[in-house]
């Protein structure tokens, strides 16, 4: 059985849980159709109902007042107890801040393997394995758990798609299990959660990026880059001068003072390639640069370089892509 720990806070389900449902279903299929059970620590009724409605597997809420609000010690105690009675083969969670907080402690408490930040599944039905990034995404390591189950696995946010969850035809069972949690064993006193202003776009997750630089000349020309981004289903990003001028929001800036990205395809339009920009994108799988200046440093990192006028080349590419 695959046990999925749902993440919730203030009565709401963390959406990343759905991605983990999708991952758990793929894992179950790979292992020849293992059942999935979802556990909701701290028993929030609306969360349990929402998960049950999807009909992906039985939902068990672990009830104890000490589980609300979240503390790592409370979760570890409650879940360690639950593991003993449920004896799952895999325990899966989204790789959230909360998971990073309690999962290592839980795995260590039970002395079981923990594989974190998994991006893909691999291996065979008898010997399943998991891919996880190493060296800031430059390598993907294939990791196989060793020893006796349960095996703990966390899935990278964005690696699996929530919209690919196979929903059941009928709602699943919801049951409540009382767990004993010794309050005196909880060493943390949580304060009210605080949140930094959220980033609206996370370019680090984009598989394709079209980035514009000074060569775009004026804000009126941005739709040209947007049309290319749309044709490629890519995110639009920019080098610093563009964001400094306010033509694109700061959150779309790539480089040492912006985001670091490593997409499969990086298309640089009119970007000269100042080192501050290069450090933010040189890990991209394939780099295509279009620039008028053949001596522009961007060509030193580009896999494909086009020396020419982006105002001629980009429309031609868009036309080709739309064919």
């Amino acid at each position: 059985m695959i046990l999925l720990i749902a993440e919730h806070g203030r009565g709401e389900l963390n959406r990343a849980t759905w991605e983990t449902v999708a991952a758990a279903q793929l894992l179950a299929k790979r292992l020849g159709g293992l059942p999935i059970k979802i556990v909701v620590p701290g028993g929030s009724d609306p969360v349990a109902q929402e998960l049950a409605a999807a009909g992906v597997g039985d939902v068990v809420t672990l009830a104890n007042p000490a589980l609300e609000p979240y503390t790592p010690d409370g979760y570890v105690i409650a879940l360690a107890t639950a593991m003993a009675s449920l004896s799952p083969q895999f325990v899966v969670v989204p790789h959230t801040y909360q998971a990073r907080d309690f999962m290592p402690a839980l795995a260590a408490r039970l002395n079981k393997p923990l594989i974190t930040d998994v991006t893909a599944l691999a291996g065979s039905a008898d010997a399943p394995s998991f891919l996880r990034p190493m060296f800031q995404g430059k390598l993907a390591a294939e990791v196989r758990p060793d020893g006796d189950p349960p095996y703990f696995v966390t899935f990278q946010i964005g690696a699996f798609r929530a919209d690919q969850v196979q929903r059941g035809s009928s709602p699943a069972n919801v049951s409540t299990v009382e767990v004993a949690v010794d309050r005196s064993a909880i060493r943390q006193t949580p304060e009210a959660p605080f949140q930094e202003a959220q980033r609206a776009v996370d370019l680090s997750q984009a598989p394709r990026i079209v980035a514009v630089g000074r060569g775009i000349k004026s804000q009126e020309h941005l739709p040209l880059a947007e049309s290319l981004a749309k044709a490629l289903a890519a995110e639009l990003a920019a080098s610093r001068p563009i964001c400094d001028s306010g033509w694109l929001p700061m959150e779309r800036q790539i480089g040492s003072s912006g985001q670091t990205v490593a997409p499969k395809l990086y298309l640089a339009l009119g970007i000269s390639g100042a080192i501050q920009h290069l450090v933010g994108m040189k890990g991209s799988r394939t780099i295509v640069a279009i620039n008028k200046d053949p001596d522009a440093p961007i060509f030193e990192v580009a896999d494909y370089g086009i020396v020419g006028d982006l105002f001629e080349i980009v429309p031609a590419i868009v036309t080709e892509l739309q064919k």
Partner: protein
Amino acid sequence: MQRETLDVDVLIVGGGPAGLSAALRLAQLQKQHGGAQVSIAVLEKARDAGAHELSGAVLDPSTLAELIPDFRQRGAPLATEVHSDRVYFLTTKHSLPFPIIPPPLRNHGNYIISLNAFVRWLAAQAESEGIDIFTGFAGQDLLIEGDRVVGVRTGDRGIDKRGDQKPTFEPGVDIRAKVTVLCDGVRGNLTKELLRRYQLGRGREPEQFAIGIKELWEVPRDRIESGTVMHSMGYPLRHDEFGGGFLYAMPEGRLSVGFVVGLDYKDPLFDPHVAFNRFKRHPLVARLLDGGQMVRYGAKALPEGGWNTVPQPYTAGALIAGDAGGFLNSMRLKGIHLAMRTGMLAAETAFEAVRSNDTSAAGLASYTDKLDRSAVKTELYPVRNVHQAFGYGLFAGLTFAGLNLLTGGRWPKRLNGVAGYERMQTLRSYYGDATSADILASNPASPSQSASFPVDRRLTFDKLTNVHYSGTAHDENQPPHLLVHTEVCESICGPEYGHPCTRFCPANVYEIVHEAGRPRLQINASNCVHCKTCDIMDPYAVITWVPPEGGQGPQYNGM
């Protein structure tokens, strides 16, 4: 708003050679004299001790030997002893070695060091004496009550660019002290405020500054012998520009290459970074660097005015030491040992004042007597006029320096100087007729020899690339730390001087962008390497440098 306060006896602002020597000296005095503990705190704006320390550097170990006699056993990071001195006069293509090394440039017995490593070591010595060094905290404002300095307020953290509080907001701390020792470096923001408020520079010569730009290189090991010190005069500077280049060879092919330019040049289109690039492309330097790799970059201003420009270094509750007070010997190109010495003397003054419970101006005035009786005056007084003599041009300066040497500095008259930024001439007066001035003003990539130089990205780099190698980093979402009266830029400074800030800044902080045909000054504050040149050199004195959020700025590892 509720601010935390911390009370100490002596607060030292700035954890460089002066500040850390002051702290160590205080700890020593405490041990010698016993009695009630004098509490000490050191503030340092860099994230780690030494991260903002930049110098050539050749260290005269005389002060170190007094402060820490067993410095060798304690593993002071002195990269190598100097065993060869060379001085060259450069022309466009050639280099003429000086047949004899002028005595001020003889470095026998001195050491080539990384000031960054040296200060990290000094900080470790201070910490082992139980001294608290608060790294990542900048002194933002002086705390003043009545007519005395009572401490320093550190900068707030977590303020966004509009001045509103972010969720991470933390108000600055008021550190109250009986004596505040300002060691905030060349053109320190607090010292600047103190000098202005109490007119401590009254009756003194105007301060003089230079900018030093430096790169650390790794070159093939057999290229130049470790322990070699080279200095140059002449090219690429013209006779009315003060300065020169330096090359210091350390073990394992590490080479410091730098260029110093007096911030009193007349040509508004002059760019110190261009001069540095030209120096590196001179055959003498290029053959040493060729095939090597630049690993770090940085810049800092230097106080070059000498003895006659040192302000009154004390006021009620405060003392000034190190570069902040202008204690640097520009003839020997050395200031670290003087910073350490003045830090120690300030510590002695502060210790006596705290013990005798008199930290008034009168109680601290003995600092001046201590300086007068010390090696600081012995070294600086004889050369008090030399920098000012260079105001009359290179050859007049050299002649004067030679005469000064022969006479042991006996010269009846005080040579007057003017503040360097006032010497900068307008485009029209420097370049003559109106048309060429207009052409230059409208064309930032001007034809002037000193304003632009193509870079090859091997030996020479553009400023933006160099800035990357300074490791500087600032949160973008914070109030600007360069306060500029921008209305002057477009209407007056552009037409008259052609935006010299875009050239004297070695870190590409100032950029003119043309929007709808109008020039607008864009301030890339996050590029700043804290060199203070803009605060010093802008011709209208409309730029004020204040500390950004603590812990930000360059990372001068190995510099």
